[in-house]
């Protein structure tokens, strides 16, 4: 793919940013969603507020590149530095409109597993929930970010770390899934293609997904980044630390 339309990860950043509406309170997280938040702030959502689970509240991106949410540039110029329980309490109150979560495995209901997986018969211990379970349980809606690989898309995840759509849910649930291949609408417990990234075909997606998915005969193409969106991303991630890789 040419520089003009960006790498797939750049596409994912743009798609993530588009999930944020102006004025919303966003549980941000790191990597692609962090870039998406900054992009949204710089474009269509200037009044969005970002919460980080370490207690940091920001209404604009850090002035320097950060590797973790605790890095000093994420503190300097923050609106507030509170405690973890303060931001989790805001989440539990229902004051957080949208939260971003990633996972190692996903199933059709948007359940995510980040705790333990099986690979060729062996159990692989994954790092764990972090704040994933909390965002999945308590945000008004969630946006999921995944590498689109067959081993990650399973009819049933072996362990539900971050619950998706289930009968007992009281609030929220997965709204959108953004992968390396496309954007999917998960509202109401369905799993529908919303758009495919440029150059990605429906067959490729079905082959990379271990369960049936709904799609129109010829799905829309994910709107590529505008030049100014690309310019923003490349300023924010100059080394391509997060957005480099497969184009």
């Amino acid at each position, binding site marked *: 793919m040419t520089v003009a339309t960006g790498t797939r990860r750049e596409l994912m950043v743009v798609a993530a940013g588009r999930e944020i509406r102006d004025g919303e309170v966003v549980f941000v997280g*790191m990597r692609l969603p962090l870039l998406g938040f900054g992009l949204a702030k710089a474009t269509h959502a200037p009044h969005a507020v970002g919460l*980080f*689970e*370490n*207690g*940091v509240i920001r209404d604009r991106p850090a002035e320097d590149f950060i*590797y*973790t*949410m*605790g*890095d*000093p540039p*994420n*503190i*300097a110029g923050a609106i507030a*530095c*509170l*405690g*973890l*329980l303060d931001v*989790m309490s805001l*989440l*539990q109150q229902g004051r957080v409109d949208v939260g971003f979560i990633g996972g190692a495995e996903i199933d059709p209901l948007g359940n995510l597993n980040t*705790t333990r997986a099986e690979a060729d018969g*062996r*159990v*692989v*211990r*994954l*790092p*764990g*929930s*972090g*704040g*994933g*379970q*909390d965002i*999945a*349980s*308590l945000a008004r809606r969630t946006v999921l970010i995944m590498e689109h690989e067959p081993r990650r898309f399973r009819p049933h995840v072996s*362990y*539900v*770390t*971050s*619950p998706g759509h*289930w009968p*007992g*849910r*009281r609030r929220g649930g997965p709204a959108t899934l953004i992968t390396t291949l496309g954007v999917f609408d998960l509202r109401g417990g369905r799993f529908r293609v919303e758009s495919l990234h440029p150059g990605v075909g429906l067959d490729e997606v079905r082959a990379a997904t271990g369960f049936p998915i709904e799609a129109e005969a010829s799905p829309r193409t994910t709107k590529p980044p505008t030049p100014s969106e690309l310019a923003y991303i490349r300023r924010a991630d100059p080394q391509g630390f997060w957005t480099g890789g497969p184009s």
Partner: protein
Amino acid sequence: MGDKRRLMREAIADLVHDGDSIALGLALESGIPFGAVHEIIRQGRRDLTLIGPISDMAFDQLIGAGSARRVIAAWVGNVAGGSGYGFRRGVEQGIPRALEVEDHSNFTVGLALKAAAMGLPFLPTLTGLGSDIVRDHPRIRPVDDPFGGPPLLAVGALTPDVTIVHAQRADPQGNAHLWGNLGLTVEGAYAAKRTIITCEEIVDEAVIRSDPNRTVIPGFLVDAVVEAPGGALPSSCQGYWRRDFEPFLSYHRQSRTVEGFQAWLQEWVLGVPSLTAALAKLGPDRLSRLRVEERRLAAAANFAP
């Protein structure tokens, strides 16, 4: 309240025992008391239970060194690299020894510490409903809402034997000023039976008293205060040290194998006598690149009566 200043070696020797449960790294990726962590390894502590929200490399090192028997945490790994190989070997293969894990989310481990900090047996929450983490969990049970609402989950109190916190500054009585992101630092100090403060500077009590709102840990909760500048490196300490990114990546590479981990352990922990020696090993150029020289001071706040 008495003078609580101690050397790192003394504080760890006297206050951290085999079999203890220890909360550390409570501010998540910043202010991780690596100086204390490595002294614990040097002193050969065993059978520790490690308590924290996410742990960025510190728990992985303690596990790889064989100091830990159990982990109570929401996430164990290497934030820059992903998986923690020491953690994985412990859980998957029992190397160097079997490792039990009590899985949590950041919120539930925080509530467990907060319950202890409040002197309560539990705190209720809505998080975790529908998750496999809370299924058959030793510390999480259903609880009814006595006001007739839908059922919730109760997170049982978690009281660490010791909490170790790296602060920017403290006075000799242990009254500690912290700033930047706090994570679960305050809850961990209130919850613990014993608290160790390592800090960039031990300052005159007048400095602390000039801003009582910055004293998030009062000294009467503190058992030892250790002056340990750079004691959080390679993690950051707001206003003092930047994050040293390279050691996280090199440790991640080296610790992929047991041999690599042992080489790292020998070079950076067992082979160096102290935090001071470990920092000297980094060299002056590296340290000056990491040290924060710029000053962006908090706006004046007047406490005059």
